[in-house]
């Protein structure tokens, strides 16, 4: 019986990051990278994966050390841990794929001020077991990467006519260039949030009707 409860709790921890508590769409956290590097789908995916690595490693380390870190210096300790893993990702990416590292530029390093990561350490990893923290981290990162792809795929298709650098349309396609420029980022996220809100409102209305 307790196994079933645990299993459902685990899946809940993982799934909540994807939809109900999606970091970008619901809590509107971590927007700086979300808009800056989503001009192509590949960049969005790479940023999502880099953030996943940082969030996962930080959560594991913070959760393992939660009883050792004194309350007064916990934020400082978290920041040191997060900054360490961000530096690891930065150097790692520069070694593995110089092209992507050049495209993402300083925004890899800016993962460290992504409120999502520090927020998860404070709200979850410092208070739960390593296992649950891993699930939480994976769920939130999956939600974040999902959001990045939701923003970057339409931007790339509309703005360059390609997807993951593969041309989709013929020569005659005139790309909507503004979408891969900064305003496009603002508009894309704005319209996605609008869609989100509209869907949530429709659901609320439907539930109200059902209740009556």
């Amino acid at each position, binding site marked *: 019986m307790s196994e079933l409860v645990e299993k459902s709790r685990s899946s809940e921890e993982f799934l909540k990051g994807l939809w109900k508590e999606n970091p970008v769409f619901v809590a509107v956290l971590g927007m700086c990278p979300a808009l800056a590097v989503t001009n192509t789908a590949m960049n969005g995916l790479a940023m999502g994966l880099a953030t996943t690595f940082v969030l996962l490693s930080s959560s594991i380390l913070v959760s393992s050390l939660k009883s*050792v*870190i*004194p309350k*007064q*210096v916990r934020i*400082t*300790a978290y920041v*040191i*841990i997060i*900054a*360490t*893993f961000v*530096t*690891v990702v930065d*150097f*790692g990416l*520069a*070694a593995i794929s*110089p092209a992507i590292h050049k495209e993402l530029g300083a925004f890899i390093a800016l993962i460290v001020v992504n409120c999502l990561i520090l927020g998860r350490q404070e709200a979850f990893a410092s208070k739960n077991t390593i296992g649950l923290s891993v699930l939480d981290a994976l769920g939130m990162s999956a939600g974040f990467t999902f959001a990045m792809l939701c923003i970057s795929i339409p931007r790339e298709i509309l*703005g*360059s006519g390609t997807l993951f650098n593969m041309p989709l349309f013929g020569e005659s396609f005139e*790309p909507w*260039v503004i979408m*891969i*420029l900064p305003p496009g980022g603002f508009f894309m996220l704005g319209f996605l949030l609008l869609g989100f809100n509209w869907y949530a409102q429709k659901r609320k209305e439907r539930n109200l009707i059902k209740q009556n």
Partner: protein
Amino acid sequence: MDTEQQHIEISELTPEKEPSSLKLVLALGIAGLLSGIILVATYTYTAPIIKANKEAAMKRAIFKVLPNCASYSALKLTNGKLEEKVPDADNKKEEDKEELLVYSGFNEDKELIGFAIPGSEPGFQDIIGVIFGYNATGKIIIGFEVLESKETPGLGDKIFKDADFQTNFTALAVEPEIISVKKGEKQNPNEVESITGATISSKAIVKLLNKTMLIWQEAIDKYIKENNLNMAQKDE
């Protein structure tokens, strides 16, 4: 008496004492130490790979702007003269970004083909970074490659996407100076045809080339004379 007892019991129930400053410093110190170990390990492992990647990229760019290039060496400008750049022996220091470098390119017979010169200049949106190949005897630019550009997609980015624009730089004379002209009006070897709809980006490239030549031309001429280098004969 009663309140005193209660007071003592309450303080016993709350064992959470403010940890000493020493403990806080120690905790942070250990966190710092852990972090340091991870970082040094990562750096030691990745630094050589990153350096190799950078060199490979530079090599590709130099070989592209100097045709038939087989090897190159770096030269830096000190007091108006070109000197061989001695690679940092113990590789401890990071590259000095302020240092101005050019690269002399040699073909398979170790003859000097020309110099690959990097330069940068603000364009329409942001700085444009370029490297071009310069033949010092003919005083012409023989190759051109854009390294960094944030110009407008579809317009300014034609500086590296438009094949017609690239043909400007196969034999571009640098004397007396490079001038930009409208498309279709090129009459002299020192003229560059701008891209229609991207005049500012094109003019920025011309300004870049003139400015960079101003920095290096004299030093290069002096260097060739002093070292009596053999220039490779151009295949006509």
